[in-house]
């Protein structure tokens, strides 16, 4: 006999998704949105520029002959190997990743620690092989959590920390009670529609609102008005 898996509130079940669920000791599901190769490559490009600029800033040291050359070499060594480690342990991500709204975490959702950070960044040289992170790219594409080889060995994830659409307001409208009781799913769909309506074209708003014609018995902009009315009633009451 095989027990079926408990549903994850119906949100990720059976779907291909970049959400990874981790249940905290408090019994709450943390949703970690893992970051794909494109945004990570952009972060990498920013970091490379910063590193290049820092190396350029070190070159005046060469004027101080031996001591300066020694400091320059040490600086290049530290930048080359420990630039990501330093920033990951200090801020949770390199400046490039922060700019892209990413963070590095352990698989259990906690901020990355020294051991994992050193592992994932030393193994960068293998991800870089044969050139320009080919191995890393292949690894991120094969792995379900977009992990490169260094992430696999260190047990780390790179996640989005910013919500995809930060500000969301339900447009104010006269609250209208729905003509009949609604299931929670329908309620959520109506509220979600109202929240997203600001980012939709007016044609799309009408088209989506007309999907509820069985409920509102309206067409066109009247349907949109009706659904906004339900959303206001559901969230604010009369």
């Amino acid at each position, binding site marked *: 006999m095989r027990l079926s898996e408990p549903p994850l509130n119906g949100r990720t079940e059976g779907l291909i998704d970049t959400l990874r669920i981790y249940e905290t000791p408090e019994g709450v599901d943390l949703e970690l949105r893992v970051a794909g190769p494109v945004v990570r490559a952009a972060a990498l490009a920013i970091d490379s520029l910063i590193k290049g600029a820092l190396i350029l800033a070190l070159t005046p040291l060469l004027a101080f002959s031996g001591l300066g050359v020694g400091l320059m070499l040490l600086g290049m060594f530290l930048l080359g190997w420990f630039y990501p480690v330093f920033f990951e342990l200090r801020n949770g991500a390199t400046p490039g990743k922060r700019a892209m709204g990413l963070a590095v975490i352990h698989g259990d959702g*906690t*901020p990355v620690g020294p051991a994992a950070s050193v*592992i994932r960044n030393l193994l960068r040289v293998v991800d870089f092989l044969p050139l320009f992170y080919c191995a890393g790219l292949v690894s991120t594409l094969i792995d379900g959590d977009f992990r490169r080889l260094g992430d696999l060995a260190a047990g780390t994830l790179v996640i989005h920390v910013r919500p995809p659409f930060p500000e*969301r307001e339900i447009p104010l409208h006269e609250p209208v009670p729905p003509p009949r009781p609604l299931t*929670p799913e329908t309620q959520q769909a109506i509220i979600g529609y109202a929240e997203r309506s600001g980012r939709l074209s007016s044609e799309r708003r009408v088209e989506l609102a007309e999907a509820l014609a069985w409920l509102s018995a309206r067409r066109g902009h009247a349907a949109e008005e009706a659904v906004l009315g339900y959303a206001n009633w559901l969230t604010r009451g009369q």
Partner: protein
Amino acid sequence: MKQQQFETGRHRMWKEYRALLEQLERSPGRRDRLSPLQRFPRLYRRICGHYALARSRGYSSSLTEDLHDLVRRGYQQLYRSRLDWLRQTLAFLSAGFPRAVRGHAGVFWLAAALFFGPMLIMALGCHQDEELIYSLLDRQDIAQLESMYDPTNRKPGREADRQADTDFAMFGFYVMNNVGIAFRTFASGLLLGLGSLFILIFNGLVIGAAAGHLTRLGYGGTFWPFVSGHSALELTAIAVSGAAGLLLAAALLAPGRRRRLDALQRNAREAVKLVTGALAMLVLAAIIEAFWSSATGIEPAMKYLFGGICWLLMIAYLSLAGRGSAGAA
């Protein structure tokens, strides 16, 4: 309960929690001195409850996402591992690292054999056969090597300050070069161990060839005193980082009763201790190499004595340090 009632009833608590959270995120180091933070874990658990409620009641996704964001950030602050850098570094160097080397004695000896074996064979071979070194290095490299250690080529009477200056440049170079080799030896273990294997054997062969060739030419009088001081730390550190690489390879080739990924993550945690220790050894070796080995005014006998003491101290350190004491971890 309507969403708006739910929100207004809890707004103050969320505000307080958010303020504490931002305080924690701004100054992660000073958390124990800030007394209002004692309320943080309690508030965090309450917010977890609110989040679960908001989800099960189907409140709007902007509210659930806001609450989820608060939960995620609170979780990260509450469960992050605290770092006490100074104490942990000292504990690692005085006990953790030698324990890790002894704990993985098998791979360490294997890496050492792969490094010192070819070195010894090549040294003997190049000492006997003057042609052998040309099979490994090209003519230009060999000429440069010879001129570096040619006893007639020494330029005596360099000014002391000038000497110290170039010494520091060499220190930077040794750190960058040697630690780079150690890190690559470790990382390339992920290529089923082939990378580590290649770097260990190749470097062993080159070092052995140089030693055998220079001794055969009669340059031993400049070569051996130079290398004796830093040899203990430098050579052993390369073997240690090779062991770290082999640990990664072992996880992939012989994961035992674990999935390969689990074995890899477990072995990487151990390997990183070895690499970090190798880093410390190589920085120390670079100091010796740049400022002691290159010093021209010191008798060879002194350098041999110093080198011998270094070997003894290092063997004692790796085999004895951190034994018995239960506390340090």
